[in-house]
């Protein structure tokens, strides 16, 4: 197992690593499969996401960029998977927590998203909308 490349989330104007794959439920439901280009990307794609909307109304999770492999050479983007949605795809199919690690790397783990960082910001998402958030201060495992 190899540590996996993360997704990216643009949140409050910052590019953050995201250790969650909100596109996976959509791919399972639609039967779309991608091919892994290398061992650090078994899922076969990398997405850039953004939290959009105002706090007065609701804030939602949107997929704004995609680089997905049908084969090693055949790379497709958002326009091929979601034609007609250049401004972003609302992830209404996703409910769960997304993990945004931040700060210094405390422990590198050579597998999945298991590496530990100084802080984890968790966003609780329900049908694509943010319902709550919490932060966890991590300590190095001795």
């Amino acid at each position: 197992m190899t540590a996996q490349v993360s997704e990216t989330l643009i949140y409050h104007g910052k590019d953050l690593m995201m250790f969650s794959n909100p596109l996976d439920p959509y791919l399972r439901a639609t039967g779309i499969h991608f091919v892994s280009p290398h061992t650090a990307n078994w899922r076969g794609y990398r997405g850039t996401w953004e939290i959009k909307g105002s706090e007065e109304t609701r804030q939602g999770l949107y997929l704004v960029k995609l680089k997905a492999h049908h084969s090693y050479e055949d790379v497709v983007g958002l326009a091929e998977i979601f034609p007609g949605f250049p401004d972003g795809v609302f992830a209404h199919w996703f409910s769960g927590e997304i993990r945004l690690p931040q700060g210094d790397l405390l422990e590198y783990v050579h597998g999945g998203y298991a590496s530990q960082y100084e802080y984890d910001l968790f966003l609780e998402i329900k049908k694509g909308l943010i319902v709550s958030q919490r932060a966890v201060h991590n300590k190095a495992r001795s």
Partner: protein
Amino acid sequence: MSVYWNDWITWFYAYLAVGLMTALVFYGFSLKDRPTKFVKDMRSALGLGKTLKDHLKDILVYSIAMVVICVGWPGFLVWAALKKREDRMRELEEDEPTFICRPEFLIREVSPLEAEQTNQVHDPLGLAPKVPFGHLNGAWGKFLSEFGFEDGNELWYFEVPKGESSGEYDIFDGPICGYAKVVKGKVYGEFVMEGN
């Protein structure tokens, strides 16, 4: 030469003859499962080839089996039939698709119209398609087209609670919900509209 069917020894020989034929047929079937020359060569190269002792052991085992089948062939045939049935059942079980939805996660039976009316997407920016299930509308349509609305096929709403594990996936860190095709309480298909 005439056969005396009222003589018990004739019946005994006939019984053994059937047993011998059964044993030979099953020996023939067992030859089909023998490793190929390629596998034998590979095993020899790895130092796992058969020794003289192994060959003698095989001959002894086959001889004993032949005698046992000749004598107790009715019992052997019953055992062989049961084993074949068991193997077939296991194969069918392995071929069955696995679903996230298990019968205990079924909440209520619904109609397709009701499912579509309750699943309009609420997108803060209004970018999502204004159709039932939004971007999953195509997947929903495919699910319905394969559903088969004959008598006995039911559409059920299901929810898998957070922390459960099911199907091929590990423990879920959020609820999962969707619709399942149910026939006599058994799940035959599913459409997952919300998950993680």
